[in-house]
């Protein structure tokens, strides 16, 4: 039995078939969490004393920001797994994770700007968290750009995995540096009420949304990985059989 052969081609098929079984449950879970969270958050939780209804964007902004950062680690770790153990599914997961993470980073930046306009009176401030998020966005773009630049698939996967790993070492340093930079330059006009507490009636829907976003992330990641698998394995009999069966 040739094990490298198993690693290279056997594994993606196994993942594809297993994930077909999981997917329906994940769909249901994601949809119910997101619907419950957003209905509760948008319709039933009370308006904020100072911000009115505009605060409700946190139900998208906060979970997206969480997942944007976690997604980078998902990408880098699967890249490392692919690099070290030559597991094909991991390489494909890394490929799939990059655009999802970039989109989430963009969503969190965009919702932050939308929230900033009524709250701070401007679309953009150089706040520590926003700046870090922007740099994270650049890191994602870099990994994607590097992957696209290579013509040889194998090399592209390995090279972008290395870049993602270098990024993970740097992310904590970048975050700390930007925090430090911000405390140095913090303008007196903008006051952050970080000590203000959030009411349980606002917090619970937020927690549900965060869990819902995790489920959504997992769902998106699996779906995209499945697409990458089909692309990669398009010449195999099982994919051809699948295509003919569903056509």
């Amino acid at each position, binding site marked *: 039995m040739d*094990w490298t052969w198993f690693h290279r081609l056997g594994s993606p098929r196994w993942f594809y078939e297993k994930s077909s079984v999981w997917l329906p449950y994940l769909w249901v879970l994601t949809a119910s969490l997101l619907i419950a969270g957003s209905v509760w958050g948008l319709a039933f939780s009370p308006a904020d004393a100072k911000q009115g209804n505009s605060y409700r964007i946190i139900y998208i902004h906060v979970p997206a920001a969480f997942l944007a950062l976690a997604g980078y680690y998902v990408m880098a770790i699967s890249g490392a797994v692919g690099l070290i153990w030559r597991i094909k599914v991991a390489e494909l997961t890394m490929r799939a994770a990059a655009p999802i993470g970039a989109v989430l980073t963009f969503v969190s930046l965009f919702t932050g700007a939308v929230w900033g306009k009524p709250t701070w009176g401007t679309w953009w401030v150089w706040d520590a968290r926003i700046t870090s998020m922007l*740099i994270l966005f*650049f*890191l994602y*773009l*870099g*990994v994607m*750009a*590097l992957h696209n*630049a*290579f*013509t*040889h698939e*194998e*090399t592209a996967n*390995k*090279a972008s995995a*290395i*870049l993602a*790993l*270098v*990024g993970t*070492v*740097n992310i904590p*340093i*970048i975050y*700390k*540096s*930007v925090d*430090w*930079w911000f405390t*140095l330059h913090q303008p007196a006009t903008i006051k952050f009420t970080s000590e203000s507490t959030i009411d349980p009636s606002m917090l619970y829907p937020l927690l549900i949304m965060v869990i819902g976003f995790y489920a959504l992330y997992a769902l998106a990641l699996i779906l995209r990985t499945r697409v990458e698998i089909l692309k990669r394995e398009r010449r195999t009999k099982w994919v051809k059989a699948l295509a003919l069966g569903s056509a």
Partner: protein
Amino acid sequence: MTLRILQGPSSMTSDSLSTAPATDTAPLEIPDINLWSGFAATFKRDITVAFRSRGDIANPLIFFLIVITMVPLGISPERDTLALLAPGMIWVVALLATLLSLDGLFRTDYEDGSLEQLLISPHPLYFIVISKVLVHWLMTGLPLTITAPILGVMLSLPNQGYMPLIASLAIGTGVLSLIGAIGSALTVGLRKGGLLLSLIIMPLYVPVLIFGASAVSSASEGFPFVGQLAILGAFLAMAMILAPFAAAGALRISVNG
């Protein structure tokens, strides 16, 4: 030392062991590797090549000078405004000048085939990468550091800012060269690597820029700056340990384009 390593069962069956080197085979020697021989040979070669094409050393410096000239033209010749901008501007431009020169770090070796020879050298690639980065720093970082005070004068940097400017650039450009080597190694096999290199490396330069520029501006406002320099030193130590590994790994991968 004689090497007689029995390999694990996964790679070798008992059958192939018996066909493997028998008694008449010369024992394999573990190479007695002199770590510095590869480092020294590559350092000597690269520094000779760099000195034979001295014009290339001047290019980042001229770039540095021209961009700094643009600042008063684009913003204001007023001394106070310039003094406020000086630390950040000098640092940003030094960063860009380093980036511009990084593309060639491994590319010339890739194009003439000596990169292949580097990769098949029995010497550890780590030290070879370090020696190439060291030459790169001597040819870009060091000249930038030395010319920076002139630009400080042009941007009316306060007197107390010069020492930290030189110190922070001397340490910081070393970090820039080391981190940049990773990007240069990753893009070496790509025809249009230059812009991509900047794209993937610049976000990683953020911490260096923050602490480097902050050391200078703190000092010029009369605040202590040793802390920032110490942090830059820590970055340098960390980059020296990790970056050559990443660059060496990247070279082994990207050479197969």
